[in-house]
């Protein structure tokens, strides 16, 4: 199997986000994804990509550019607008020897495929008593801004994090974008990779050789002692900015990047809150029954005694995304909200 023997990136410790200090080749988040796909296609003949407009001049915001030319239109395949059916097709291919990567330009199109994802893909291995697995990876991108509005900027990871049988990862950095995507493809588990459009231009040192970040392992992005800030995806970026600002005021914030929302790195959350005694979670999605609620429950179950202040959640407003720019500004929380929230806890 081509995936065995690939280096697993076991780091869970502190690492500066987007550090320029580190030596090595830098890549954007977009190019890190493309490199992961390129290497997966090159290394494993079972891998193929399928998605609407995947081979067009835009190349899924650049993340698939050149791959159709390199691997041909059967391995990098355009598809009809039929998200549920094509998820079934990809799942059927996955059950019979292939390792498809199905790509959506927006997370908002996943609800169309919910039947196949929730009722079939997630359950197939269990229903067959472990005899048939579904090594299908689905990429979907969360949009934001410029009036993308209610149907083009959702971040629905909580819906999938609720479902046993699925893996759901949300890379916040280029290195993780590559490592988690390859980690999902290699895992043989049905996986959802939720990317964020606003991270696509971000640069970081990314190893050139293939490597795997195992789903389920979070990361301490910054160490601190007074409060734990937990986030995923683009929220990690806001949290790091806030931590920096808080540092100038003498407040030491620890920033955790969950990286996976299913499986969830409970141990990391618990050990951090045991250290700091305070916790704020920021999410790119809604609050109710979201990942921020789950983190609250984990802490309340396993580190109740350690929490010295009320738990806080910073999420998008509890409504569909509005189109108007002034409303968008109010819709998305940012660094300032985090800073204010932390100060309120101390």
């Amino acid at each position, binding site marked *: 199997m081509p995936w065995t023997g690939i280096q697993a990136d076991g780091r869970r410790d502190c690492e500066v986000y987007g550090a320029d200090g580190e030596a090595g080749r830098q890549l954007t988040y977009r190019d890190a994804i493309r490199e992961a796909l390129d290497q997966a296609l090159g290394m494993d003949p079972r891998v193929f990509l399928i998605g609407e407009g995947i081979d067009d001049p835009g190349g899924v915001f650049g993340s698939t550019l050149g791959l159709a030319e390199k691997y041909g239109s059967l391995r990098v395949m355009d598809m009809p607008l039929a998200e549920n059916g094509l998820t079934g097709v990809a799942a059927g291919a996955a059950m019979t020897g292939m390792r498809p990567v199905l790509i959506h330009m927006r997370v908002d199109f996943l609800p169309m495929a919910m039947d196949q994802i929730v009722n079939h893909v997630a359950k197939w291995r269990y229903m067959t008593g472990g005899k048939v697995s579904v090594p299908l990876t689905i990429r979907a991108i969360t949009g934001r801004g410029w009036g993308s509005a209610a*149907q083009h900027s959702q971040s629905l990871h909580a819906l999938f994090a609720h479902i046993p049988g699925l893996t759901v990862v949300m890379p916040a950095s280029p290195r993780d974008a590559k490592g988690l995507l390859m980690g999902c493809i290699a895992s043989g588990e049905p996986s959802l990779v939720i990317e964020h459009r606003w991270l696509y231009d971000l640069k970081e040192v990314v190893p050139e050789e293939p490597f795997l970040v195992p789903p389920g392992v979070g990361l301490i992005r910054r160490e601190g002692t007074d409060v734990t800030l937990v986030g995923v995806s683009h929220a990690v970026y806001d949290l790091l900015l806030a931590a920096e600002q808080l540092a100038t005021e003498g407040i030491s914030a620890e920033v955790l990047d969950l990286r996976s929302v299913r499986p969830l790195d409970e141990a990391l959350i618990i050990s951090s809150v045991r250290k700091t005694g305070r916790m704020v979670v920021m999410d790119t999605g809604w609050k109710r029954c979201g990942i921020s609620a789950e983190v609250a429950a984990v802490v309340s179950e396993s580190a109740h005694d350690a929490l010295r202040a009320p738990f806080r959640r910073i999420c998008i407003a509890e*409504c569909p995304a509005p189109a108007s720019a002034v409303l968008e500004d109010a819709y998305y929380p940012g660094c300032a909200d985090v800073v204010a929230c932390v100060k309120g806890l101390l």
Partner: protein
Amino acid sequence: MKPVSEILIELYRTMLRIRRFEERVVALYPEQQMKTPVHLCLGQEAIPAGVCIHLGREDQIFSTHRSHGHCIAKGMSLKSIAMELYGRETGCCRGRGGSMHLADPEQGIPGSTAIVGGSIPLAVGAALSAKMQDNGRASVAFFGDGASEEGSFHESLNFAALHHLPVLFVCENNQYATSSRLAARQPDTGIAAKGAGYGIPSRELDGNDVLAVYRAAGEALGRARAGKGPTLLECRTWRWMGHVGPTCDVENGCRPRDMHEEWLSRCPLEQLRIRLPESGALSPDFLESTELAVCLEIDSAFNTARHSPDPDPSQILRYVDGRG
């Protein structure tokens, strides 16, 4: 029945209002005041014009991400559309919807959806409503060739045919879904060919010929109102601009230049003008005065939009439900 000349005038004026509106969007978009993704229908004006001329205010249409033309043809004021594109509180959706979600229930437009295929069952639902209320209304689903690949298309045709609902399915086949050509997505049978499987009268026609659309839609809506059920029209057309935004996508290789030019030469407005000089309806005087009137209307719409108030951010949670 209206006299032919009046019909021609109305068709032309509607197409012109759509054309000039979209051109104004193109002109003003670079100012970055319309912060909303615009999917322009330049080149496709004949379809909304030819269909909506048969509709009364009480008839219902459902539109898509490419919604401007449908809403203009159905009677929405240019001002309320422009204000929505500017994200204003005074826009048709109070700045919550933007370009892809235009709605005006007073004009028989319950709304537009940016989820491809979503408009189709909604329009069938409006037709079911009409049947249940026995109010003589018809409804129209506008959708693209890409939407015809979604399961909702099949589910909608089946249900509408089963219950003989007064709905017209209007597929605007511009041969592309974003940059993906029809042949990469469907076998070469045509979309109208699907209708027969449900016993639905279906036709493929030149969507740039407003009179062809006018005739086919009139017939279909007559049948719908007579309780004879749905019709599917596949209108072949071409969009002049890129999938989204105010520029063309031919330069960057999204669509072939030769086809593009061939279709540009088949401008729906010009065709109507050129092919019907003898009717006298579209006289030079008429054309000139209409241009002027439309231009003034658009000036006023966009000026008002530019100077209208933004929504109040503290009201962000309003309209989620009727409780708040």
